[in-house]
């Protein structure tokens, strides 16, 4: 999880970033996280999946491990950073192509 954050952190330099628009990021991540945490809770209670006690800290809120709660914030943030970076690069490429056409 930390690896995902470290790996995607440099993507913040592209365009307007994600962490620099913290409110917009929170408004996108939090509502979706709440829905998926509810799903997660139902799945744990309904014995659809569970967590190997050997690999989680045992700390959590109710039956949901803290690692799982982090997952619902970290993965969407990584997704946003990826999308933000890809959009910026694509926009930059198309601008460069347009510039070249003009200079010819």
């Amino acid at each position: 999880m930390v690896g995902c954050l470290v790996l995607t952190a440099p993507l913040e330099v592209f365009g307007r970033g994600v962490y620099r628009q913290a409110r917009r990021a929170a408004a996108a991540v939090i509502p979706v996280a709440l829905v998926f945490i509810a799903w997660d809770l139902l799945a744990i209670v309904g014995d659809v999946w569970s967590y190997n006690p050997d690999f989680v800290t045992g700390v959590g809120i109710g039956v949901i491990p803290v690692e799982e709660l982090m997952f619902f914030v970290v993965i969407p943030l990584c997704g946003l950073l990826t999308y933000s970076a890809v959009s910026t690069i694509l926009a930059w490429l198309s601008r460069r192509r347009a510039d070249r056409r003009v200079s010819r």
Partner: protein
Amino acid sequence: MTGLGYTLPAVVAVLIVIAWELRVLRTGLFRQPAYWISMAIVFGFQILVDGWLTKLSAPIVLYNEHHSTGIRFPWDIPVEDFLFGFAMVTAVLLLWVRRGDRERESA
């Protein structure tokens, strides 16, 4: 296997997200190449991370096979996980893009 606990909600989640964009939000996200490239990158990393979380030799997440198709690919990843991931990441990107559109309109 009944698939009711995981397969069905995973399929429904994907359909809800797609319907939400096409019928309600209409951000045009699905027409953007940047979205599909990003999803390809996200799926690539999901295989690495999820593969490690679900590997049957030392699984971190334990699935009750009664609730899924039992199909695990690649490695030991339940295929339902990809539907779950698609729905979650797409929903977040939709809210992000919608907010960006609104900011641009008000600017």
